[in-house]
């Protein structure tokens, strides 16, 4: 069991040892060797993580389409590969070979930059997510804050995408998207505060450790009443933050064509599209880490538990998407500022009041 639990950690150590062995033959100084090995390992980890990300998202896209079809009484993709499993791959290839059109009056540099910026938060956030016990690419002691911070970079990508296309629908969509993302960032961050308060640290590893034991009863979603409230608020605002239906106003096709993506085609459009799914995936991983105990769980290896929880949350999101109509702009803003923010603030106060009480009764 232990071998299975530590599979990836052992793999990492083994590769590092192998590298040491290989480089040892070169006769470098100790310091230089250590530096080289750590640099190569960093690159390796980044590559693996990037590949892993792509795999995760391809599965996610397939799941979404299949699910949508099921809920709408259709069949969904079923031609490419078994059950249409290779459909996302085919789509990717199509995007790569499609013509890339840049509007004549666009700000070309900004237009090209935007999708790349939009991808950045996803890539940066993946670096700190604890996939399993000891399976965190970078362990920084402010993981929660890091994720919040890099998530805010995505806003810029969307914004300059809307501006750079030089199209009124793009611009409108971009402005809407930014307004929405900025508004929902606040309740999202505020719901993390009670968790940080309870753990006493912003490290994602510590947050995971705090939720271990008791067969799941230590998960923060069961820390009544603060936990469940925080979870619901977090999940709603996360859905809005990444612009999923019912909060997909920035690209509401019945109103503003495709929003900030209107003028994008080919791989640039593909990047935006991927970025959205990446972001969705990431908010689910964070929700799983903060509220559902991360990789904690009985019997199965930690990383399996983690993936299961994340996909559970993803399926929940898909269910919501398929069954709810889209919000209006004013309803959207009201929900953020007049409902979610106050609830989140009260929740923080509750956590602050409850914490000493729990501490004293020794929970």
């Amino acid at each position, binding site marked *: 069991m232990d071998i299975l639990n530590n599979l990836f950690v052992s793999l990492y150590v083994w590769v590092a040892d192998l590298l040491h062995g290989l480089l040892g033959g070169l006769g470098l100084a100790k*310091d*230089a060797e*250590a*530096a080289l090995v750590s*640099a190569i390992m960093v690159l390796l980890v980044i590559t693996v993580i990037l590949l892993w990300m792509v795999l995760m998202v391809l599965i996610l896209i397939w799941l979404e389409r299949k699910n949508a079809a099921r809920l709408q009484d259709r069949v969904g993709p079923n031609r490419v590969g078994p059950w249409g499993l290779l459909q996302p791959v085919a789509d990717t290839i199509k995007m790569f070979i499609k013509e890339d059109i840049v509007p004549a009056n666009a*700000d070309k*540099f*900004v237009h090209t*930059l935007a999708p790349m910026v939009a991808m950045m938060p996803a890539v940066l956030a993946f670096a700190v997510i604890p996939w399993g016990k000891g399976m965190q690419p970078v362990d*920084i*002691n*402010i993981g929660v*804050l*890091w994720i*919040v*911070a*890099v*998530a*805010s*970079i995505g*806003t*810029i990508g969307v*914004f*300059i995408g809307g*501006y750079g296309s030089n199209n009124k629908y793009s*611009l409108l969509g971009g*402005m809407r998207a*930014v307004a929405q993302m*900025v508004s929902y*960032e606040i309740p999202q961050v505020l719901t993390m505060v009670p968790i940080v308060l309870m753990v*006493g*640290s*912003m490290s994602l590893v510590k947050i995971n450790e705090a939720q271990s034991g008791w067969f799941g009863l230590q998960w923060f979603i069961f820390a009544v009443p603060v936990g469940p409230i925080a979870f619901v608020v977090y999940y709603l605002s996360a859905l809005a933050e990444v612009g999923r239906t019912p909060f997909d106003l920035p690209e509401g096709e019945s109103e503003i064509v495709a929003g900030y993506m209107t003028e994008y085609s080919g791989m640039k459009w593909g990047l935006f599209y991927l970025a959205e799914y990446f972001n969705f995936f990431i908010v689910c991983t964070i929700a799983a880490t903060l509220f559902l105990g991360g990789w904690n769980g009985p019997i199965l290896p930690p990383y399996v538990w983690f993936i299961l929880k994340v996909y559970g949350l993803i399926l929940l999101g898909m269910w919501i998407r398929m069954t709810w109509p889209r919000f209006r702009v004013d309803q959207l803003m009201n929900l953020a500022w007049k409902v979610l923010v106050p609830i989140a603030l009260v929740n923080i106060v509750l956590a602050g009041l409850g914490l000493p009480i729990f501490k004293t009764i020794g929970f």
Partner: protein
Amino acid sequence: MSTPLVLTYVGFLIMAAVAICGGLIAVSARNLIRAALGLILSFVGVAGLYFVLEAEFIAVVQILVYVGAISILVLFAVMLTRGLMRRDLSAQNSQWIAALVVALVLFSALLLVATGTNWKVAETKIAGDLIPKLGEQLMTTYLLPFEAVSLLLLAALVGAIVIARE
């Protein structure tokens, strides 16, 4: 985790270059959106320098507040006042030469101060987690400024809304 000195230098140089280049773009670009993008680049560079300085918390706050909030505000303001960008013939005003001279004079003075002074440098290793300490000090030693700044933010928010709302 101790990073080899070479890597520290590489990190420092890259980040310093990013910060300065971003700054130069920010003050020279005619297109305001690009100036704002240069500003963001500079913010990111400075955040990187904080990482090199082992001040992770400030680095992340820098990204969160400057990149995530202030630059968005700037971009919004540029968008909302967009009509005039077309008519803008030159980005610099008539006294840009004087400004350049002032900046250069000040720079040479600051250069003198930065390099000529015997700063009492101590080689200290940062031990342990500073963030709980930071939080604790904000609530004890720096309680007064902490409370004052929260009042300030409230007042600034109210005032900015009164002035900017439709």
